């Protein structure tokens, strides 16, 4: 089943659609959650909770919003970030970002190096302040206010930097897909 009919079947809560959605996205969803939470078991609990929340209220996803995959990744990230922000173990990761240390990308067998290289190259094309904003937001899991305080710039500046950076990254990705 291709992406759009699958999304429609998922919204209609057809069991086979849930099975396909889980099978297609489980690795990515668990990987995203583990990156944020740093623990495989907590990541699986996070994916479990997020997926069932969407399954319980499928109307929260609207097809005009984009792909179901991107929506699910966003849901899992938000669930994981909420958990992480509420626990003390964020301290170690925050310290790393606060000190401006370069982000560490760990190569593992499952990692698609070509995709990762494309993303790194795209990030490298951003102005430094925009790249830093994205890194703090996405890889550091910071809120907009935390980023503004850390960089010492107004909140509005962070908003516009994040918006500009994501639009540029989107355009770069679209160009490479063609």
């Amino acid at each position, binding site marked *: 089943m291709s992406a759009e009919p699958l999304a429609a079947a998922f919204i209609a809560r057809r*069991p086979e659609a*849930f099975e396909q959605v*889980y099978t297609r996205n*489980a*690795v*990515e969803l*668990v*990987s*995203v959650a583990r*990156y944020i939470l740093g623990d495989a078991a907590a*990541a*699986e609990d996070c*994916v*479990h909770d997020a*997926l*069932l929340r969407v*399954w*319980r*209220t499928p*109307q929260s996803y*609207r097809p*005009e*919003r*984009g*792909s179901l*995959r*991107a*929506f699910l*990744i*966003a849901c899992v*990230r938000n669930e994981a*970030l*909420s958990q992480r922000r509420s626990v003390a173990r964020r301290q170690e990761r925050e310290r790393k970002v606060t000190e401006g240390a370069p982000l560490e*990308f760990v*190569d*593992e067998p*499952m*990692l*698609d190096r070509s*995709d990762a290289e*494309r*993303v*790194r190259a795209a990030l490298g094309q951003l102005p430094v302040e925009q790249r830093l904003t*994205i890194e703090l*937001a*996405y*890889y550091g*899991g910071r*809120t*907009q*206010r935390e980023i503004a305080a850390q960089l010492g710039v107004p909140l509005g500046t*962070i*908003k*516009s930097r*994040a*918006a500009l950076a*994501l639009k540029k*990254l*989107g355009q770069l*990705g679209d160009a490479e897909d063609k």
Partner: protein
Amino acid sequence: MNQHLGDDAELYALGSLESEERDAVDAHLAVCAECSQRVGAAEETVARLASVVPHIEPSPELGTRIRAAAATLRSESSSLKRFVVSSSGMRRSAKHVAREQARRALLPVWAAVAASLVLIVALGAALVQSGRLKDQLQADDLALVHVVYGHFQHAPLTRRIPSALAAAKVLYANDGSWLYVVVDRPAGDLHLVERVQGTDRDAGTLARRGSVATLFVRAAGRPAAISLRAAGNIVASAQLTYRQ
């Protein structure tokens, strides 16, 4: 939030908004296709960033857990109803609860529907307390049973377009954690919109069951008002009040 999201769309996609800000964005996205598209485009880009994250295989146990829970959620209503039919020993007390609830709260036209919910839930709660149901229902089912088994309030909906429905009523928890809307003889599909802290939120489409349509909603706050909408028009509405 009635105005468009602006740059908050990208921050939302990045997960960089506080929870209250996220709730406001969610409410706006429920009614704004333009902002939904902007957020969706940002989420696609954010999903690309995930490619640099080291990938790990989920355990087989996660698949088993999640499939079982999804199947249970899908059939939670029917499974509870089966317990009603099969548990003759509990039937008398459950009927008594339903009769009492109906006598105190409900109008005749749709009383049977609302009472059936109470009957199902009351019976489920009794079984849970006896321990018989614990092994058969997942955590979400238990939550549903316990929440609905608590005290509730009710209000009729005032019809604004009489031809759209015969009657409607809402049952709701005093803490705002859930509400249940019952509509008698709707003319077509109906959406429920709830207003929480001045913001309208689409709570979903009512499901048709014979001559009535119903919707059960778990909510995160106390809605001040609800409305039923058909093709964007408000066909019925109610103000909700709460005990202190």
